[in-house]
C-alpha cells in the first residue's frame, strides 16, 4: 500500500532533516518572567522524515510542537541548528511544503473554488492550470460546493477545502498542525481515513502534530513523543502496521498504552 509513496521517492515525498535545532521565543508578558528574557521552546532536536514517510508528533500542550512545524515550513528561522529539505537548508516558505492549520483559515471573501486556487494564483499559474483546482476539489469530494462561501460550510467541509487548497500545490511535504482538532469525533474519524488515503495516493511526506494519541498512531508510521517544554525527543514509537489499519488492532492498543505512559498518563491504563 505504501508502495506508491516509495515508487518515485525523489519526485514526490521530500526528505526532511532537523539537525540540532533549538529555538527561543522573545518573552511576552508571561507572568513572573522578566522582560527580555527568552523562553526556550525547543532544545537540541534531531529528527528525520524519510521521503514519503508519515510522521506524527505527540507531546504535552505547549511543548513546542507547533513551533517546530513553523520552522519546518520556513515561516520562522530557527534560533540555532539547521533544517534541510533534501539536503538544502530551509530558509523561507516554499510551496513544496504546505501547512494545514487547525483552523481552516479559508479566506471568507473568496468562494471555495477561489480559496483552493490561492496557491496557483499566487505563483501566477492559475490561468493555465484551472483544471487542477477542479481536480483538487473533486479529490476531497466538494466539487458541488465550488461556488459556496466559507461561511456556508460545516467545519469538516471547511477543513476539506483547506486540504484541497494545500494539495492543489502538489506539495512534497504536507505539514498538518492539528488539522482535525476542532472537528466533531465522527467527522474526525472519517477524515483520518481520508487523509491517509490522500497521502497514500499522492505520496508526499507528512508531518502531523496532534494531541490525539489514537489519531497519531492510527495515521502515522512513526510517532515522535516529545517532552515538556523545551521540546526534546522522549521516544519514537514505530507503527509498522500496514494500511488500511483497523482501529481495534491489538498492536495499536499496545502502542497507545506506551504513548500514554510516556505522556504521564500511564495510570489511566
Amino acid at each position: 500500500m505504501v508502495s506508491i509513496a516509495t515508487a518515485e521517492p525523489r519526485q514526490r515525498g521530500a526528505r526532511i532533516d532537523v539537525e540540532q535545532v533549538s529555538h527561543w521565543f522573545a518573552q511576552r508578558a508571561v507572568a513572573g518572567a522578566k522582560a527580555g528574557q527568552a523562553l526556550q521552546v525547543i532544545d537540541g532536536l534531531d529528527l528525520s522524515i524519510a521521503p514519503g514517510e508519515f510522521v506524527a508528533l505527540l507531546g504535552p500542550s505547549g511543548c513546542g510542537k507547533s513551533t517546530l512545524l513553523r520552522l519546518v515550513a520556513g515561516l520562522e528561522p530557527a534560533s540555532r541548528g539547521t533544517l534541510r529539505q533534501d539536503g538544502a537548508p530551509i530558509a523561507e516558505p516554499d510551496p513544496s511544503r504546505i501547512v494545514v492549520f487547525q483552523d481552516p483559515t479559508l479566506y471568507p471573501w473568496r468562494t471555495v473554488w477561489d480559496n483552493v486556487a490561492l496557491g496557483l494564483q499566487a505563483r501566477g499559474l492559475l490561468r493555465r492550470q484551472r483544471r487542477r483546482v477542479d481536480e483538487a476539489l473533486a479529490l476531497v469530494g466538494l466539487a458541488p460546493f465550488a461556488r459556496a462561501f466559507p461561511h456556508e460550510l460545516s467545519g469538516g467541509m471547511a477543513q476539506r477545502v483547506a486540504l484541497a487548497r494545500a494539495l492543489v500545490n502538489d506539495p512534497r511535504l504536507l505539514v498538518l498542525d492539528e488539522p482535525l482538532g476542532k472537528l466533531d469525533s465522527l467527522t474526525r474519524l472519517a477524515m483520518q481515513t481520508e487523509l491517509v488515503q490522500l497521502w497514500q495516493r499522492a505520496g508526499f511526506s507528512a508531518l502531523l502534530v496532534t494531541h490525539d494519541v489514537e489519531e497519531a498512531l492510527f495515521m502515522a508510521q512513526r510517532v515522535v513523543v516529545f517532552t515538556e517544554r523545551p521540546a526534546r525527543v522522549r521516544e519514537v514509537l514505530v507503527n509498522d502496521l500496514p494500511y488500511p489499519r483497523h482501529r481495534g488492532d491489538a498492536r495499536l492498543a499496545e502502542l497507545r498504552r506506551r504513548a500514554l505512559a510516556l505522556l504521564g498518563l500511564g495510570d489511566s491504563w
Partner: protein
Amino acid sequence: MSAVAGDLLAAPPVLHRRHAATPVWWTGALAALAWALLAALTHLWPNKPAGFTEWACTAEFAAGAAAVALLLAALALAPRPLAALRERLRPAGPWLVALAAGLALWEVLTAKLGVLPPPFFAPPQALVEVYAGDAPRLAESAANSLRLLAIGIAIGAAAGFATGVLIGWSRAANYWVHPVLRILGPVPTTALLPVCFYFFPSSWSTAVFLIALGMAFPVAILTWSGVAGVHKNYYDVARTMGASQWFLVLRVAIPAALPQVFVGLFMGLGAAFSTLVVAEMLGVKSGLGWYLTWAQGWAAYPNMYAALILMALLFSGVITLLFAVRDRVLSWQKGVVKW
C-alpha cells in the same frame, strides 16, 4: 468605536411578513383618507392674512395632496395592474398616514392659525412655491455641491485608503505617519478653513482639500486597523504557497480589511458633508451651503427650508449609495453579520 459604527452600517433587518392578498389595503385606505383631509383642510380653510401677499401655491399644494389621496385610494382598492406597486408601498403604509398628519399639523400651525409666524416659519405651500419658482437655481446649487463633494470624497477616500494600507503594512511608514495622524486627524476640518483660504489659489480648491482631508482621516484610521487586524494565519497560508509581498497586500490584507474600510468611509462622509456646507457658506460662491446663506441674507426663509430638505435628501442618497456598494462588495459577509 468601530464596532458601534459597524452596527450602524448594517442594513436594517428585512421583515418577512407574508400578507394574504386581501381585497382591501386598509392602512392604504386610511392613508388616502388622511391625504384627502389634508387637501380639504388646505383648500377650504382660508389662510390667515400674513400681512403681505397671500401664500401662493395654496391651491397647488391642496391639489397635490388630493392627487396623492386619489392614488392611494386606487392602490387601497387595488385593481390588478396596481397590485405590484401596492405591495411595494405596503410597508410604508403607517408612514404615509403619519406624513399626511404631520403636513396637516404644519399647515394648520403656519398658514391657517399663524401660531408659528412668518417670516421665520413657512407653510408647506411656500416650499412648493420655492421648488416651482426657484428650481433652476436650486438644481444648479445641488449640482455644484454634488460635484465638489464627489471630487473631495474621491480624493479623500483614495488618499485615506492608501495611507491606511501603508501604515498598516510598513513599520517605517507607521512610525512617521501615525503621530501626524494622531495630532492632525482630530482637528475639525472646518477649523482649518480660514488658514487654508490663504494657502490655496481659490476657495473652491480649499474646499476640495478640506473635504478630502475630513474624508481621509477616518478612512485611513479604519483601513489601518483593518489591515493590522488581519489574522496572521491568513498571511502564513499565502506565504507557504509562494505569495509575493504584493500578493499579500492586494489579495490578503486589503480584502480582509474591506469591512473596516467601509465603516471608515461612512464616518468620513459625515465629516465631508459638514466641511462641504461650511466651506460653501464661508467662501465657495455656489452650492447648497451658499444657497442657505444667500437665502438667509434675503430673509427668504422658505428658500432655506427648501434647500435644507433638498440637502437632507441628497446626503441621505449618498449614504444609501455607499451602503448599496458595500452590500455588493461585501456580499460574502452575509450570514456572518449578526443582527
